[in-house]
């Protein structure tokens, strides 16, 4: 009874969108693909079972479509992560790690979830994930559900939330129940 009551409402909500702008995954991807990149501030909150309270980090993101993403963490410890093409570079103090993503299919799929969404590359995303879109153009959420068990072994769901062509937050739900949420606030480009 309750279920039959909600569904029509949902249909009703969806109805005008389909009529006016055909709001669906393709439309979101097109809109995201138009994003020209730029800088943003982020705050990331990780909830880890082992710890009594979440770990919070913050810093700056730079995105250069389609392949380069720089995450510069300022707090609590300076750290630089650069994702460029198929290499991932992590610099922390004196230590430097470089990962060639092509060698690590799981890591590549994980990275592609982020890069594929930012650049609106549906084909890449659907290689590893099932997509589920909710909301409307002004307030949407996109769920990525891994269909490869090797990815599902460490991440259950990745959710992007945003408005129009702007991603505003990303939430990772890990297989062990820990989760992290990153909120993104664009810095206006001149």
């Amino acid at each position, binding site marked *: 009874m309750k279920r039959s009551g909600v569904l029509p409402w949902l249909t009703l909500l969806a109805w005008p969108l389909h009529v006016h702008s055909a709001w669906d995954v393709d439309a979101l991807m097109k809109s995201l693909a138009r994003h020209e990149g730029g800088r943003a501030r982020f705050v990331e909150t990780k909830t*880890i079972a*082992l*710890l*009594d309270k979440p770990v919070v980090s913050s810093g700056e993101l730079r995105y250069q479509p389609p392949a380069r993403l720089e995450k510069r963490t300022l707090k*609590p*410890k300076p750290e630089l992560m650069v994702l460029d093409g198929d290499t991932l570079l992590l610099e922390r103090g004196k*230590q430097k*790690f470089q990962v060639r993503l092509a060698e690590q299919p799981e890591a590549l799929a994980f990275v592609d979830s982020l890069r594929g969404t930012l650049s609106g590359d549906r084909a890449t995303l659907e290689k590893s994930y099932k997509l589920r879109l909710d909301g409307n153009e002004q307030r949407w959420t996109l769920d990525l559900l891994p269909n490869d068990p090797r990815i599902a072994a460490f991440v259950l769901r990745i959710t992007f939330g945003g408005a129009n062509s702007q991603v505003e937050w990303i939430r990772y739900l890990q297989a062990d129940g820990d989760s992290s949420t990153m909120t993104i606030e664009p810095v206006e480009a001149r």
Partner: protein
Amino acid sequence: MTRSGHRAIAVWLLGLVACVAVIAQTRFTADMSAFMPQRPSATQQLLVEQLREGALSRLLLVGIEGGEPAARAELSKQLAGRLAASPEFAGVQNGDAAALAKDRDLLFSHRYLLSPAVNPGRFTVDGLRRAIGDSIDLLASPAGLMIKSLLPRDPTGEMIELVGALGADHGPASAHGVWMSRDGRRALLMAQTVAPGADTDGQEQALARLRAAFGEVRERLPQAADMRLLVSGTPVFSVDARRTIRGEVERLAIVSGVGIIAVLMLVFRSLPALALGLLPVVSGALAGVAAVSLGFGHVHGLTIGFGTTLIGEAVDYSIYYFVQSREGNDGDWRARFWPTIRLGVLTSLFGFASLLFSGFPGLAQLGLYSMSGLLVAAAVTRFVLPPLRPAGFRPPDATAIGRAVAPLLGGLGRLRWLAFGLAVLAVATLVVQRDRLWNLRLSELSPMSPALLALDESLRGELGAPGQGYLVVVGAPEREAALAAAERVAGRLQVLVDQGVIAGFETPTRFLPSRATQQARRAALPERDELARRLREATAGLPLRAERLAPFLDDVETARSVESQPWLDAEILKGSHLTLAVDAMLLQRQSGWSVLLPLRAPAAGEIDAGRVRAAVADEPGAAFLDVGREANRLYAEYLDEAIVLSLAGFAAIAVLLAVSLRSVRRLLRVMAPLAIAVLLVMAGLALAGERMTLLHLVGLLLTVAVGSNYALFFDKADAAIEPRTLASLVVANITTVIGFGALATSTVPVLHAIGVTVGPGAVLALLLSAMLAGGRAR
């Protein structure tokens, strides 16, 4: 046959049997260390040992091409499994994820003995708070994913210290769980042979095992039919060099043998005489190999290669004998010709004796080989051939050849001024080209094909395998002292890394710290109750509660006592890949232990040797080694030495001739053609753009040795040279040119060098002797 004849034959036969017996026991090698010094300085000694026995001399680089990547990876795994189980290999690495995980487990369980961060301060309340705080901060990073599960056991992050030290940023790429080239077309493996570099037989066996194992695995895997095996590394070079040399020696022996036999047949027209004519050569060659084997304990492949050149000179003796002597009148030959030949033999021996003093075992072997070979060949000609001479054998009258040639040589006699003119031109050429005469690179002696070198470079690059590169070396009588010294040096090198002088370095103490260091680290671990108390205090206010860290307390307690965690030693590392790394860098030597710390040059280019030397200067016994440069410098030094020795040989020959000829005029008449021939050959090589190596020098010495016979015969003929003698010289010259001409076509640089020097040199020596003899040929 006279009684003395019987005795000579008996002695000769016994000698041959003895030589064959010695040769049957002889070990033949082909490693480049023969061209390294015998009496080296400490660093040179190390260099030679590295080439002979070091990890590099045992490292095989393996690539698998063709087929699908996944099938290739499967083949790589099965191949690695087979090699690891075979007795020829000390270790195999193919980047197998499971094997790497085992290494990581080993590091993790010994982290409190291994981590450089472990010291008493680390486990104070403050130290713990700082280390745990860092770990929590790290959880905020993407790298946090790696450490989250380890945190209850390792809250202070020792594993991060170790992994950081492992240098995760270099090493081969991988795919499908094994090492794979960047472009994904080659699966890659590294294998270490048990046999050291000097044991070419053992390495050949290991290579055969590798190829067989590859064949078997390929057979059994469904999609592997079109996969190919690529192998490189020093063992391949040694084995390949030996095979090339062997093949070349066979080919050259056949080519020059057939040519020489054809000429001899033409002249002798008698099969028995031909067979006899070859006896001195064969006896000389056998004696030469046996002498080297007895003198050096082993024989280098190149020495054998040199054997073919001996044909060129030793066959001359029997030509002289058969062409110059008459049946039943050996006494006449002994009286008229033998003294000249004997002086020629002595001249050659004096020349080659200088090589015995060479610091290069390779050259000393050549010297001993030539001396004993020539001596035996001459003795066999003198004492064994006459009694064996078939009754009724009369060599066809060769005087016809002599008569035919005489006018030509007579004409040459009027060209005396031309000889001196050419000499002046040659000297001028040499002066102009003086900076381009010598090749100072050791690698030029290597018989490696460019294709093999290119493959080596590409596999080395993909595997990130160490090249020759840069090393810091420390030594001590005891292993522990050597490790402790390496730890001190590592501390200095770390400063250089921070300053950017070097990009990084390896040290065995990363995986095998000295006992003293392990002791200090163990002593820094507090006992359980105390650690629990400090931990509670340290975690106050942190989001990580002490109660969650019980596994940490357990692990530290385990690490505190030798009963629950024995000292980390070579035994514990055995079976892991860490042992390969340690073995490569920690060497037991006759005089004690050496530790090698390979340095990585900064991306910007070369290492500033001065700064590295300065940094390790106050560590006694520590030395910085630029291996490539050191090897070349060494070679240049020994080239200088060889030049001096050759000049000494030349001088010795001059003294010998002065004493036996007792006349300055005659001395000049004999020496001048030889000296001018040498000058002309050198000038010719310079004009042809061929830079001389040590072996060209040996060739020049041989030119003098062969040419002295010609010059002496021309000199001996006081009035005019007899047609018979002239004929013997011409035939001898033709066979010499055939022998060395064949060598000049060789792809083995060493053999080519000798051929290209002696071939023209011998002809020139004959022509110049005729020119300077002053037209006294009839």
